């Protein structure tokens, strides 16, 4: 309970402090370089103009300074440092050049993680985007569409750990003959199959873990793609209707080609999330039964046996390298947008 009071106090102080900084910094700037006066002396007027120029150039930096400080300290510096640390030893003391990288190249855990991550990267963004698209298209035409969309979006709001508990319950396994309490096994038994301990099945368990992430992200895809679908110009649809096209044909041949941009955004965003997600594997299997992924591997090495920071940094850098193509694509798009301004 004390933490909460501490937190509220900190929030108030922080807000008050930052706001105070901005106002005070601004006043100081205006003090040093005043821009208005009651006098009409021409010499003072030209001084004012000069002041306006200077304060106009300085003021924006006052506004962005705290943000830049935080960004540099907590993002830019660590990124550079981590890249550097991958060439150092376990406690970042000794420079060991490519030792960590050599170890990584031959490490079985790393191979397993790369293989699994490849699977995750292929399956999750594709299925989540596809399901989001389908649900967006379907719910657009029915009267209870809003409710349906709400239900599908809901898993986005909960934590990965919470979702893992929910699905662990669905995957629960009891020995054959016993009453199944997990939904999946109950359905399987109902149709005459044998119950399985889904999370422990080598290779296939990865897909059961992926279902959790797809369950959580399809709603996001649905929201973006539903908006994109609604933005498709009416004329293109009407023209197709006049030509006698049915709804399915219109959906696949007219609407989808016009929303490729949105599909791309959704697909890349989910891809990045897939690379970062460590909670699901950490909570459900902790990499047992061959479910290791890069994010979890990095976490393990950060703390395993006191932590090997050099190896952890190397793995983090691998994740970063995988993300870079998307980063470049995003920056290019942002640049183009800014040119239009």
């Amino acid at each position, binding site marked *: 309970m004390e933490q*909460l009071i501490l937190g509220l106090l900190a929030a108030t102080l922080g807000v008050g402090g930052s706001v105070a900084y901005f106002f005070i910094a601004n006043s100081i700037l205006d003090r040093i370089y005043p821009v208005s006066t009651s006098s009409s002396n021409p010499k003072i007027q030209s001084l004012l103009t000069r002041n306006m120029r200077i304060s106009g150039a300085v003021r924006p930096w006052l506004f962005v300074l705290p943000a830049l400080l935080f960004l540099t300290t907590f993002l830019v510096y660590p990124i550079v440092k981590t890249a550097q640390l991958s060439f150092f030893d376990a406690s970042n003391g000794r420079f060991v050049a490519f030792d960590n990288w050599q170890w990584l190249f031959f490490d079985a855990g790393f191979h397993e993680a790369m293989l699994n991550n490849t699977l995750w990267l292929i399956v999750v963004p594709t299925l989540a985007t596809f399901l989001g698209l389908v649900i967006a298209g379907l719910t657009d035409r029915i009267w209870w569409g809003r409710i349906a969309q709400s239900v599908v979006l809901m898993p986005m709001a909960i934590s990965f750990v919470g979702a893992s*508990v929910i699905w662990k319950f669905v995957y629960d396994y009891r020995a054959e003959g016993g*009453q199944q309490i997990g939904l999946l096994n109950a359905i399987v038994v109902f149709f005459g199959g044998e119950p399985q301990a889904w999370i422990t099945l080598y290779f296939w368990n990865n897909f059961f873990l992926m279902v959790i992430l797809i369950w959580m992200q399809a709603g996001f895809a649905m929201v973006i793609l539903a908006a994109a679908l609604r933005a498709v110009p009416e004329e293109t649809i009407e023209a197709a209707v006049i030509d006698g096209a049915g709804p399915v044909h219109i959906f696949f041949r007219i609407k989808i080609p016009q929303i490729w941009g949105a599909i791309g955004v959704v697909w890349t965003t989910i891809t990045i999330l897939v690379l970062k997600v460590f909670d699901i594997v950490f*909570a459900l299997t902790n990499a047992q039964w061959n479910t290791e992924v890069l994010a979890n591997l990095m976490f393990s090495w950060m703390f395993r046996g006191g932590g090997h920071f050099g190896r952890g940094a190397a793995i983090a850098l691998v*994740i970063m390298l995988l993300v870079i193509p998307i980063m470049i694509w*995003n920056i290019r798009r942002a640049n183009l947008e800014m040119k239009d301004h």
Partner: protein
Amino acid sequence: MVVTPKRSPFMLVVHAITFLLVATWFLPTLGLFVTSIRDRDQISVSGWWTALTGATQSKVFRAPGADGQKEQGGAFVISAHVFNGGQGRVSAFGISSLAPRAYQPGQSVSLRDGSVLTLRADGILTIESAKRITRRRGQRVFLEATLPPRFTLENYGEVIGAENLSQSFFNSLAVAVPATVFPIIIAAFAAYALAWMEFPGRRVVLVGVVGLLVVPIQMTLIPLLTVYNQIGAYWGGATKSYLGIWMAHTGFGLPLAIYLLHNYMAGLPKEVIEAARVDGATHLELFYKIVLPLSFPALASLAIFQFLWVWNDLLVAIVFLGAGDEHLVLTGRLNNLLCTHGGRWHILAASAFVTIAVPLCVFFGLQRYLVRGLLAGAVK
């Protein structure tokens, strides 16, 4: 909009497929919720869906032996209640494992030693014999019964009290509130400058922010942890502190915050801003009198996103706040429970729901802003 007749077979298929998909999305969460309010013994013996309809189970009951007999009205009687005082309805019973459902409730069966066994639908079992019953081990009775579902809030009570979930709840809140408010303030000023002030390097900063949006947190953990440790060692205090995690979350949340707010602010009507400038408003006045109030929807969306992100976070909390018992946030606590109480679903279900209760409330209450935020590019 393409016009299709409302009741065409095509629309039926649409409804059906949508229903299936929505059910797939809804059932897992529903299952956990129903489980969290079920009686703990019932959870492990029957699926949660039966709680909505009533479960039929097979049971084996061993009646008391010769020691339990009483003499009543000239006969020797053993009586027992197969549900041990609980409720239930017997639908069939038997005395041999080869024919466990041979008899209807209320029927009487002759046992090998001449006594007569009767099991009523309400679960009362009587064995009557004219002469003294001699078998020491009680008779085994196989029965099929329907147990009514029992709902309770005990699981929540146990979880909040014994499992220290309330402590974690306040920890989570203590982390989330400042970590939501700081980034918004700092980002608001920066976003305004990027949107409405001219200065060299503006584009570089914007491009930098876009690039930083996708950086995985894993790249930042090791150096920050090292620095925190060093600072902590220098000051002689604990290395894992709330201040540390607040600052970290602020830093991590800034790219998205600046990106969202900048996009929104840049889209505000130019005329309003220009008119105010002509009237002699300074940038600061423009900011807090005009732009900030107008940006309320974006601020709301951002606040929701950041709050949910911090509340649901596990990695940053473990690394910067630690996994010690009193510092554990809700997600960390739930993760622990998953590992230590693997199969005890009455605890896991209730804990999970305490953890996701706040996000669910935020979601259902403020869904509009969440959706708007998603559309504006709020993704982590």
